């Protein structure tokens, strides 16, 4: 059968669509007027789609998940978290998503807290609406104000977040960035990510070391592809950044935004690039693009890619080394934490986001250069199922009975691990037991040196919007007015959240300029010297001497992309 055009599911008539099997119903918004309307999730061939109808603006059809089988598999492990006991805005939340937040109804505690430390940026990406442009107010909370925000986050009950991402703008434009990071450490955050282009690190030798010293755990760094075409943002600086991070022993998470037709041909290459730098790259976190704001329908349909869409491309590009069966959704990991909690009686992190929001897997680079996804030697589903059964069984039992159930479960772990297939360099059963029994996460951290975490998160936009997802969101922005906002309300409705609040708490440009004599909007900007960067030895070594672990190199060059055209302009 001839393959259908990928945009075909958008263009069927509604009578035909209404006959398709319904998988779920949720609440969503009209992209035009934000009326809360029903979203019907249905099966269209192998795609899972969402349709909605606004009485004023008609039908909207969007891809929800581009794989029916994965959708069915992942949704079986969805669960509700507990929310927080002391919500910052204690309203009931019946007007979700406009009652943030966090309101009384929200279902997940903050898993990763985002804190914006500036809206100044040294780049001016054409698609970005966020950074302060000429004459606009500057949003830059003082260190004291940031401490206030950190403390607010850490007072969340019963589970305060222990992971934070310092973000911007470009956070490295702040001269006091080290103090900010140390303040987050002092506030009790264990995992401090710095969201940066990394470019400043390439300009200031030694800064990476000082940032690591201050408490930075990882750089969370945009990386849209291996080629110049796919990654005009920081392609040329990456080799120097990696080198600086290496000297500092500062881990890196590569963060590609995946856009169909723009950089989707390089997903395998990106993973291969990460494997080549596995001593310092801890993870690749793919973000299928969120198409917020207005754009022509045709373009949206063409550029749309969802989590399974990206996963299938990875399978194709890596020739099945990393296949779609190797991925699991984030709430899977919640099952492990629940087990530890039920066993120890101590609150553990909940990973209770919606299954459609995020997926991940671990891959191991074995001593012989073979790449092995965790699922090839661990029956993850079987393992989680047995842990969940134990949690249920432990309910209401006394301490001794609980211990017996746990012990029996742990004894059974062996059967979920295929010793013959596990990487030669790891004993996985031993590792899991030491996590469960001694709660020794250090061994896990050591293991991470030979592993690469592959993650995906598909941030929402008005078209894909699903209130069942956002009410469970655990990626939150902490605001200067004391509110805590889910990522996918903060960024999807900036007019009532992000921009509105930051505008209120910004410093008028005149005042900012008066306080920073000599500073101008232009003086923040970065100017690239391509020639000198390309002639750098590190550049050649990084890009030209890569090993091909996945059979992904020498792929056809990409056609000129929209981004590149813009850059040329």
């Amino acid at each position, binding site marked *: 059968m001839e393959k259908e055009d990928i945009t075909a599911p958008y263009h069927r008539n509604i009578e035909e669509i209404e006959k398709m099997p319904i998988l779920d119903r949720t609440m969503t918004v009209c992209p035009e007027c934000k009326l*809360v309307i029903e979203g019907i999730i249905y099966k269209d061939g192998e795609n899972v789609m969402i349709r909605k109808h606004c009485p004023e603006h008609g039908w909207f059809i969007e891809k929800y998940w581009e794989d029916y089988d994965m959708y069915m598999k992942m949704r079986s492990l969805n669960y509700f978290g507990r929310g927080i006991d002391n919500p910052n805005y204690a309203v009931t939340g*019946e007007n979700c998503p*406009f009652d943030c937040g966090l309101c009384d109804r929200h279902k997940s505690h903050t898993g990763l807290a985002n804190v914006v430390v500036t809206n100044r940026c040294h780049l001016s990406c054409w698609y970005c609406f966020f950074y302060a442009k000429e004459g606009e107010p500057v949003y830059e909370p003082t260190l004291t104000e940031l401490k206030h925000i950190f403390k607010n986050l850490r007072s969340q009950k019963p589970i305060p977040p222990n992971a934070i991402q310092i973000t911007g703008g470009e956070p490295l434009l702040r001269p006091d960035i080290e103090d900010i990071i140390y303040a987050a450490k002092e506030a*009790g955050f264990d995992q401090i990510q710095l969201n940066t282009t990394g470019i400043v690190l390439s300009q200031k030798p030694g800064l990476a070391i000082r940032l690591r010293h201050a408490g930075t755990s990882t750089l969370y760094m945009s990386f849209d592809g291996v080629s110049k075409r796919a990654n005009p943002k920081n392609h040329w600086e990456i080799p120097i950044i990696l080198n600086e991070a290496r000297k500092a022993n500062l*881990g890196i998470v590569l963060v590609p935004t995946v856009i169909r037709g723009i950089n989707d041909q390089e997903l395998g290459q990106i993973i291969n690039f990460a494997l080549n730098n596995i001593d310092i790259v801890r993870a690749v*976190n793919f973000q299928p693009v969120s198409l917020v704001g207005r754009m022509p329908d045709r373009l949206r349909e063409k550029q749309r890619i969802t989590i399974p869409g990206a996963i299938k491309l990875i399978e194709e590009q890596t020739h099945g080394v990393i296949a779609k069966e190797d991925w699991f959704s984030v709430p899977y990991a919640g099952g492990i934490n629940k087990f530890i909690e039920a066993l120890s009686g101590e609150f553990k992190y909940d990973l209770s986001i919606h299954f459609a929001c995020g997926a991940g897997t671990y891959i191991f680079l074995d001593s012989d250069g073979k790449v092995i996804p965790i699922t090839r030697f661990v029956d993850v589903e079987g393992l989680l199922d047995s842990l969940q059964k134990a949690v249920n069984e*432990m309910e209401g039992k006394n301490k001794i009975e609980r211990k017996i159930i746990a012990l029996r479960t742990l004894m059974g772990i062996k059967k979920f691990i295929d010793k013959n297939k596990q990487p030669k360099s790891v004993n996985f059963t031993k590792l899991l037991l030491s996590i469960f029994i001694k709660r020794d996460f*250090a061994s896990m951290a050591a293991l991470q040196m030979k592993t690469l975490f592959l993650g995906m998160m598909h941030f929402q936009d008005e078209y894909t919007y699903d209130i069942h997802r956002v009410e469970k969101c655990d990626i939150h922005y902490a605001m200067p007015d004391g509110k805590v906002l889910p990522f996918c309300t903060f960024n999807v*409705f900036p007019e009532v959240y992000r921009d509105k609040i930051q505008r209120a708490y910004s410093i008028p440009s005149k005042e900012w300029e008066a306080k920073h004599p000599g500073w101008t909007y232009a003086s923040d900007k970065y100017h690239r010297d391509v020639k000198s960067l390309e002639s750098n030895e590190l550049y050649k070594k990084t890009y030209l001497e890569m090993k091909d672990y996945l059979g992904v190199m020498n792929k056809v060059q990409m056609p000129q992309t929209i981004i590149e055209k813009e850059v040329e302009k």
Partner: protein
Amino acid sequence: MNKEDINTNGFLNDLNNNEDFNEIIEIDGNQYRVPYRKVKEITINVDKKDLIDMPHSTRLQYRLLLNDAILRARVEFIKGKITIVYNPTDAVNRKPKISRDEIIKILNENGVKVEKDKIEERDLDYVEEIYKKQFEPQQIRESVPYGYTKEEWKKYKDAFWSKVDKNNKSKLESFKEWQKYYESQHPDIFGTIKEKIKLKKGSNGKGFWFHGI
């Protein structure tokens, strides 16, 4: 903010009129920028029919919030009640302002009739009643660990929380130790350190990266 916004909401005028207004407040010796002081809250009882249904009430709330001078809006369909906190025209601050009549106009435009005698209005101290409360939220319920009953939890929760406190303190101490070690590894940046520093097990300052997001 684009130019039109600046003009329509009188932002520039506010900026000029209240040039001397100091946004900085002090709490426990710390200074914070807070843009509002005295603001107003109105509560309006309306006909539920005008609100149509819950989704339309939610959208009305969104439409109210679109206005920078409306700091909070709640449209409660079930109670037929609208509560709005706004920055009134006579407030002394540098932010966009709105009058009660303008708010009523927005409601009317959205099909909600407002009877003057069904409006209650009060002054509200933004710092005390909003800002501080959002930074020190009340506990409204108490969760218990999975698989435990409230009774069981009651017995050991104090011990649990004091253990958490202790852990937090020792975490920072071991991080500081790790810092010293790290300094000794990078004399080019931190200068030469004479004493020999060994890294204690577990104090690698790395934290456990698990979330993947």
